């Protein structure tokens, strides 16, 4: 194995890591070829995210899983799921009742408290005056950010694993008692009609577009100039300044939207262009109608709940209903948590780290503020110890050179001492719903009778036909036209607004509880997930037909 520079001690070493562990899968969903993590993100990821899993598995006393664990392969993620020994399994089984109970009895309140806890940290950190802090105070800020990242992952995984366990029981029972699975339209209706934080942010952006009209500023937005030019144009009029004031207030509250969740990428705070693109779309096309669609979805959901309950034996109804209600929250939480967890946390980390980076540049410790993302925490502390004297540019350079090399690597999909099928079985034995329901998605069974060009899973039911629009990254969302069918690798929080514009969505990777599926249901449009080769097979402008009910996509020309 060739040398890889140590960002962390979690670097993959085939000799030792495959000694007693039979497999490691390459997690292409988080680190696509060409996009390995940079050192700081990598360090936080392998130290905190997997510990979040272990925290959840231990707190919930899960008998079937120790949580996902990671190794870093040249900045790319390798994953496996730890399975408990017989002895641990026995202990965990004894503790499971008390471990899972709070989720069943008190989810809403626990979730509210956790979000409040995180928002408390964010509020405190947002107000830190980096420019006027002492170097030592900045060391403490760095430690606070690391602790925040750890806590965020703990909360994230606790709810994910806890609700996931409940959701899986519900899905199993629906299959056994009612003969419907989670791609059944009736089942999917149960998961829609819940407001979540990303939908609320979308609504606030729409509100800001209405303010543009009220203040007579539509003309200013009609061009395509860059955000800074638009802002300096708005600064010239009183109404323009008023709108900017409202927009900036909005950003300071809800602009902590990370575009990518797998790196510290600019949020709307740093570059509000994605929000401006959405605003221009709202002004140009009158397609946003959540107030018409959402109440309808809520009614449909209630009808579906009644329908499901009426099919359950009367003496089973009382506990089945509680099971259903908690399981429904899994879908809601999968979308809602992104705002409070990854999005806000990473945006805030980037915001503060860049400011610390700028201080280090000023002190002559390194060359660019962004270099801080090429340092691991120890190196940041080393720099902050005496920035006027120390230099860490050589650390940055080494890491950057290594990272550039890593970008050229295409990791093998799998490392193992067993076959890939056996390894997949072992991975899914951990019943980790994040893999099956959200990021990777379930296996799509072949259905040659449909004669479909692409086959996936039903994320949101319905049928639609229209021109395809292949979008590979959020920065290109401005190209989407009303009536398009969006085809993308996957979607996340900042993509939400585009769902009010398109007729249907097709994504390469994701399950029934992926962002695209959840938001598609809330906007009442068909979504097919997990087609794997959507963005490679479909070209922008091609007419396609989406029959989400059976998970089929047809290329018509």
């Amino acid at each position, binding site marked *: 194995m060739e040398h890889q520079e140590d960002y962390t001690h979690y670097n993959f070493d085939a000799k030792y890591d495959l000694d007693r562990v039979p497999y490691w899968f390459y997690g292409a969903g988080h680190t696509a070829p060409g996009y390995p993590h940079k050192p700081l993100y990598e360090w936080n990821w392998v130290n905190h995210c997997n510990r979040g899993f272990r925290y959840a598995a231990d707190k919930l006393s899960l*008998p*079937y899983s120790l949580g996902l664990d990671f190794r870093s392969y040249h900045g790319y993620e390798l994953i496996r799921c730890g399975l408990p020994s017989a002895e641990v399994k026995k202990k965990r*089984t004894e503790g*499971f*009742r008390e471990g*899972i*109970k709070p989720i*069943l*009895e*008190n989810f*809403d*309140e626990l979730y509210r408290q956790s979000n409040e806890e995180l928002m408390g940290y964010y509020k405190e950190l947002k107000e830190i005056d980096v420019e006027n802090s002492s170097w030592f105070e900045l060391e403490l800020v760095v430690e606070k950010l690391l602790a925040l990242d750890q806590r965020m992952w703990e909360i994230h995984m606790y709810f994910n694993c806890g609700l996931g*366990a*409940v959701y899986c*029981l519900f899905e*199993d*029972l629906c299959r056994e008692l009612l003969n419907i699975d989670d791609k059944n339209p009736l089942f999917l209706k149960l998961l829609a009609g819940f407001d979540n934080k990303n939908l609320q942010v979308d609504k606030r952006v729409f509100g800001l577009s209405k303010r543009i009209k009220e203040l007579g500023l539509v003309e200013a937005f009609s061009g395509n100039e860059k955000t800074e030019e638009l802002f300096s144009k708005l600064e010239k009029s009183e109404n323009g300044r008023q709108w900017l004031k409202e927009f900036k207030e909005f950003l300071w509250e809800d602009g902590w939207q990370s575009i990518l969740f797998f790196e510290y990428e600019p949020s709307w705070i740093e570059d509000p262009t994605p929000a401006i693109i959405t605003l221009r779309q709202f002004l140009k096309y009158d397609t946003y109608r959540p107030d018409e669609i959402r109440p309808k979805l809520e009614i449909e959901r209630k009808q579906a709940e009644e329908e499901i309950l009426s099919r359950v034996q009367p003496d089973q109804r*009382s*506990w089945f*209903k*509680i*099971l259903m*209600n908690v399981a429904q929250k899994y879908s809601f939480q999968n979308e809602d948590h992104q705002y409070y967890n990854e999005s806000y946390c990473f945006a805030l980390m980037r915001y503060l780290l860049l400011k610390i980076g700028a201080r280090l540049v000023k002190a002559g410790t390194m060359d660019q503020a962004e270099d801080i993302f090429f340092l691991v925490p120890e190196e940041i502390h080393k720099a902050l110890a005496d920035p006027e004297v120390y230099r860490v540019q050589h650390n940055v350079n080494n890491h950057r050179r290594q990272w550039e090399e890593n970008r050229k690597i295409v990791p093998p999909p799998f490392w193992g001492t067993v076959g890939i099928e056996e390894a997949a079985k072992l991975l899914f034995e951990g019943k980790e719903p994040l893999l099956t329901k959200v990021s990777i998605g379930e296996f799509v069974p072949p259905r040659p009778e449909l004669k479909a060009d692409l086959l996936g899973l039903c994320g949101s039911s319905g049928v639609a036909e229209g021109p395809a629009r292949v979008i590979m990254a959020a920065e290109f969302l401005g190209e989407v036209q009303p009536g398009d069918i969006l085809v993308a690798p996957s979607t996340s929080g900042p993509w939400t607004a585009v769902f009010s514009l398109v007729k249907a969505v097709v994504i390469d990777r994701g399950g029934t509880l992926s962002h695209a599926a959840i938001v598609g249901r809330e906007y009442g449009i068909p979504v097919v997930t997990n087609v794997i080769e959507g963005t490679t097979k479909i070209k922008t402008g091609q007419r396609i037909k989406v029959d989400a009910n059976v998970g089929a996509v047809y290329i018509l020309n």
Partner: protein
Amino acid sequence: MTVRYVIPFEEIGKDDFPIVGKKCANLGEMLSIGMPVVPGFALSVEAHKLFMEETGAAREIKEYLSGFPDGLSDLTQCQEVSKRIYQIIGSKEIPPVIKEQVRANYQVLCRKGGTDNLSVAVRSAGIVSHPGQYETFLNIIGESEVFDKIVKVWSSAFNVPSVAAVSKEGLSVADSPCIGVGVLPIIQSRAAGVVFTAHPTSGDRSQIVIEGSWGMGESVVSGAVTPDLFVIDKDSLEIREKVVGSKTVQLVCAEQGIVEEDVPEELRRSLCLTNEEVKKIAELAMSLERHFGMPQDAEWAVDSRSSFPDNIYYMQTRPQVAVADRKSAADKLIDLMLSRMLGS
């Protein structure tokens, strides 16, 4: 050191329920977190015990029950036993040490209320919550009346349901649990009722449901009227639903005690709460739920003699019963999960 048989609510917290009963412990806790609660005082469970021992009531009851060596066989027998125990307890005087402490505390309340004869409520407080099982007396004026009602609350530990429950367990009725008593100034309420921080039928935790009617809250609690119904969204505090109840009767204060009156026609058709009152009640209920960490079933009243927002009072709170169902459902669901895990 004198044993404290009487303790002001200000000195009580929720963990003191074995000492003063659930209701008093919760009232003390509510007071300590700044909820609008009328400050009163509690007679401890020890006070009830002392009364039973010192007056010989316990011994007399035991002797009487020895006439039923095989326990109580049916409801008629339970009624008979309960009636006799009421007579025994009713014939006893409260021991002077308790009387003195009650007197001193009642006088403090009177002074605060600016009157010599303050009207109070005398409420039962079991160690285990049994809503509605024991007696409560409203609009009680003057020291001797208060003493009389305290004894009546104590005897209600031996009312028919309690006697029946204890003998069904195979226990001796003589060992019936002693209970606490709460004494607090009465609120002349314009409207009163209950609030649930989870929807009582659907269990939806995102909604608050308020039921209210004219006069004192007991008419809502007992189900004597069809109350007004308000459904409030927790996140936005928006009122989602308002349903006017028929509210045919109301309970109002008489000279001593309370009486039922017809509600005038025009009031029956109007809501008993304003929007701002509804929201205030909901807000307070949410802080109760947050504090106790689970859905609450609480009683509130709107004082006719003060104005918004100082007119809203909370009379008691307890975990919402639906949560108990939820608890057993949770156990059932965990059984299912476990059997699947072990089966696979």
